[in-house]
């Protein structure tokens, strides 16, 4: 029987960690772009857009990410389109992230006092100019901390992509555990790696929050 050293386990987990990081980045960048677009539509598009996007947000916030991954993986296949685990996981996580980010950001825009809209409007600025030069610079300041905080949720959320056969950290963990028969050691390592990834991010978020509150007194 082959003996596996701790290093063997860790080395293979580290290789899989790459994909957790890549998937998180895809989800975050993709979700950020889609979320930003939705935010813009929501603010400028009138009541119908507001309703539809509100529904979109409720849909993704009100169902488990696991279901969304299943639906993306098996659902798209129903239309005769071959989807890899990569595509399905990217799509599902991007949509999931966009729903949360657009809601977080909407809250940040809504937190800007009405007087800022009125003052900039009275100065004859157009909607786009108001957004770009007055509202967003202020909303961004408020948004940074909760946005980075949400990144932690996304990183942990990528673990669910293992159920559709995507080999990231969690999936690699269960495969290695099946080969080594050392589930406790393996999953301890997996947990530590997630922690090593998430802890600095949430620390950073906390730091940012303190900085911004410090600046505003």
């Amino acid at each position, binding site marked *: 029987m082959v003996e596996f050293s701790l290093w063997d386990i860790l080395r293979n987990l580290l290789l899989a960690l790459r994909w957790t990081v890549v998937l998180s980045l895809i989800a975050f960048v993709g979700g950020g772009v889609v979320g930003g677009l939705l935010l813009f539509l929501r603010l400028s598009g009138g009541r119908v857009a507001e309703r539809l996007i509100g529904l979109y947000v409720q849909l993704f916030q009100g169902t488990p990410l696991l279901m969304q991954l299943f639906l993306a993986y098996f659902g798209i296949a129903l239309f005769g389109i071959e989807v890899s685990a990569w595509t399905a996981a990217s799509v599902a996580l991007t949509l999931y992230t966009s729903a949360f980010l657009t809601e977080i950001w909407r809250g940040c825009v809504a937190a800007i006092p009405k007087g800022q809209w009125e003052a900039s409007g009275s100065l004859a600025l157009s909607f786009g*100019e108001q957004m770009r030069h007055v509202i967003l610079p*202020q909303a961004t300041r408020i948004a940074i901390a909760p946005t980075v905080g949400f990144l932690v949720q996304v990183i942990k959320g990528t673990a669910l992509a293992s159920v559709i056969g995507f080999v990231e950290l969690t999936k690699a963990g269960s495969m290695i555990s099946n080969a080594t028969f050392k589930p406790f050691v393996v999953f301890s390592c997996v947990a530590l790696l997630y922690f090593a990834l998430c802890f600095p991010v949430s620390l950073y978020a906390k730091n940012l929050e303190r900085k911004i509150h410090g600046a505003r007194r």
Partner: protein
Amino acid sequence: MALVAEAPLAAAVTAGGAPIVRITALRKAYGSNEVLKGIDLEVQRGEVIAIIGKSGSGKSTLLRCINGLEVFQEGSLTVDGKPLLHESAMAMRELRQHVGMIFQSFNLFPHLSVGKNVMLAPTLVKKRSSLEAASQARKLLTRVGLEQKFDAMPDQLSGGQQQRVAIARALAMEPAVLLCDEITSALDPELVGEVLRVVESLADEGMTLLMVTHEMSFARKVSDRVIFMHQGRVHEMGPPAELFGNPQTPELKQFLSSLHD
């Protein structure tokens, strides 16, 4: 200007100018609550008008209708002969270049320096170069007595200074009419004077001013015409000496006496 109160229309004719603001049968309601019940008002170029009245009388709403911050349901409103059209973003943008507004709560942009606050609209809307806009901003800040605050951030200023920056910011767009919505109400009493002095100098220079105010002595001193609003209507109107010295309606009498308590 002294003639205005007795015969505003005749004065307009003799002055040969069309009114800068013309409001006709303006009605505005929030749901079933009618706050403006048919307002008719003509403002001549260079005229200084003080609007007084109890809170809830519709005076702020009337002011906010003039630059489109409030949408009205009936009647018409023209500025410089151009009608206010809420549906057209272009027309609103055009109109707002002629109508400046100063708010009770200053509403400076907190993320921009004082100079940038003043420069923002001229560079974006009037497409001025930043060099041009900066020199204009310095001039305007000098005019309101804040030339040394160009690089300061708004939260480093007192309320009175912030409000004077807000005035400079509004003037940067070279408006034909300036609306002042209770601009000293959020100030500590010792800071009111510095802001009112700036407004008075604007009045002296011939700026058309419409101000909602609780500063009766200021209204009396500076305005050409005082409008007393009551329950969504122009209840009484006339030159300050007449309106304050010899109020005709019981509502105005009561309002004025309530101020002296």
